């Protein structure tokens, strides 16, 4: 299934955690420059798949770049779901952490590293925050700073782990639009675990639907967002409408007793 236009290829990726199969034989390719949205209910394995791609989860099967190499931090940058924002660390210092993979043995940043980090701060309109402590930022500002750190990594692949789950609707759209702009201008490839199906349909070129660690569907949003499949996977009646040329997923009024409490996100 691998071809040269693929930025990242997963073959037979399986993750077993405490004797439980969290991901089962995932075959998935991400095209260069594309936005792939990973969707699925809590515990479906979205985060685990992202973490496997980032080399943070032990897995069997292979995850490789188009040249067959296993990706490293210079190939892909991760924007975590709940980033740790250290006390007393300034925005500038935090963004500069993104240069870690590019530093030499003595781990000293060069002027070029400073220039790249300050360029990223300027692009993301964060210059005025440069001296502020990251821990003092609002949710939306903090998420921009985390994206800035990922950009300072200068990796062609950007992995987003539900990057906007802690943000209100306005900030959600702002962060995702920013990522989309960067993708178009810099030719980045984006893989994002996304909670909100409507947002996923709006931003992603392609969606991969996961359920209980298995890849159920993989294709363009209007193919994958099938009301009956989604209702089954999410265990609740869902309908899919088209409003102003955009796909919108809505929760239908529940049939009595059809909703079970969602499993906690354990992956």
């Amino acid at each position, binding site marked *: 299934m691998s071809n040269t236009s693929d930025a990242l290829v997963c073959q037979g990726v399986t993750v077993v955690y405490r004797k439980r199969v969290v991901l089962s034989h995932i075959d998935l390719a991400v095209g260069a420059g594309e936005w792939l949205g990973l969707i699925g209910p809590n515990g479906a394995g979205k985060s685990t798949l992202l973490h496997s791609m980032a080399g943070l989860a032990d897995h069997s099967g292979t995850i490789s770049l188009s040249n067959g190499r296993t990706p490293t931090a210079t190939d892909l940058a991760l924007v975590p779901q709940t980033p740790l924002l250290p006390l007393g*660390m300034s925005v500038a210092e935090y963004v500069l952490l993104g240069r870690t993979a590019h530093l030499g043995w003595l781990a000293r940043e060069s002027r070029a590293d400073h220039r790249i980090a300050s360029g990223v701060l300027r692009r993301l309109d964060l*210059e005025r925050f440069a001296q502020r402590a990251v821990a003092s930022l609002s949710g939306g500002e903090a998420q921009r700073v985390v994206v800035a750190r990922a950009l300072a990594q200068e990796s062609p692949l950007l992995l987003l782990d539900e990057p906007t789950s802690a943000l209100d609707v306005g900030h959600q759209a702002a962060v995702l639009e920013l990522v989309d702009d960067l993708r178009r201008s810099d030719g980045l490839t984006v893989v994002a675990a996304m909670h909100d199906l409507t947002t996923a349909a709006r931003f992603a070129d392609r969606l991969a639907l996961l359920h209980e660690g298995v890849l159920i569907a993989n294709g363009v949003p209007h193919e994958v967002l099938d009301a009956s499949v989604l209702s089954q996977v999410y265990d609740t009646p869902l309908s899919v409408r088209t409003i102003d040329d955009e796909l919108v997923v809505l929760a239908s009024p529940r049939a009595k007793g059809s909703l079970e409490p969602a499993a906690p996100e354990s992956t």
Partner: protein
Amino acid sequence: MTFAVGSSDPFAEVDAPAPSEVSAEDSALLTGGAFRLSPIPVALAVGTLIAVGLLSATSGAAGLPVAGVLSSLLDHIPLVDLDSSLTVRQESVLFQIRLPRLVLGMLVGGSLGMAGASYQGIFRNPLADPYFLGVSAGAGFGAVLAFGFGLDLGWGPFDAVPAAAFVGALLAVTAAAMVARGPGSSPSTLLLGGVAMAALFSAAQTYALQRLDETRAREVLSWLFGQLSTSGWSEIALLGPYVAVCGGVLLAHRRHLDVLRVGDDEARSLGLDPVRSRMIVIVAASLLTAAAVSVSGLIAFVGLVVPHMVRLMVSHSYRVIVPISALAGGAFLAFVDIGARTLVAPSELPVGVITAFVGAPFFAFLLWRGNGVEA
């Protein structure tokens, strides 16, 4: 979208703003100190170290004049020729008694300050310290055994005492770290694990001491209390190489400690191998502690108080905390040692007693105030 000004093709599109614009903004950021570390704290710490050094060299029973000490010191610099106003006896006091002790105090204090800062970074716990992790006790036990078996051979850095101390130190820190990784662990588990290790190794020390003959036991015991007594420059010859090598390793890894502050997973996604970095830093910090313990016994709280003060007064970044803790730790212990030498003259207080008098209330205050786990 901007256009290159003055290029042969006026409509050539460029991605970046014009060069002058970039450099102006960049330099505004750079000179604004957003990325670069300010040299002021380092200069202040060096200044304090020198001031404490002069104070120490001129304090004591045989009063040495500041001008005489300075001219005598400068006279020893190659190609500098100055007439020292010190008498031969004063010169001998300065170079055979005062300076070795002063330099030893600075090296031991610097080692403990740096080791403490590094442990705090590695364990992401601002209360970690060689003493509380049981590292000092482990090193002490190793050293007592080596002394007991008569292995203090005077071979400088290749002596068996620092080697035995290192084995003890590594055992203690590994055990404390393992306790902290247990299923029921919380942030304070590491310190409690350290306390358990300290108790265990202290008991082992006491047992080993009991097996020694009385004169030897008294010697070892007075060393164990934390003393900066010297016999010429031999202790410095022992400790110096460890400070150079381990200090260099810790300095080279201080940025790793900053990266580790975002947690292991994020650190790994940024391209750092947390396990490898942690192992290197633990080995270097433990070896440094062990070498310091071998020459000066157990001196508590320096590794806790000094990095904490640096964090409070200068920066939370380990790029700053590690080197400044080395300088400030040296100045702190050298300063405290002036008290140890002079407070009850003509006899002496063990310097470890004074650091405990200062450090224990400070530690209690930190506990009372409640400290974030993340260092």
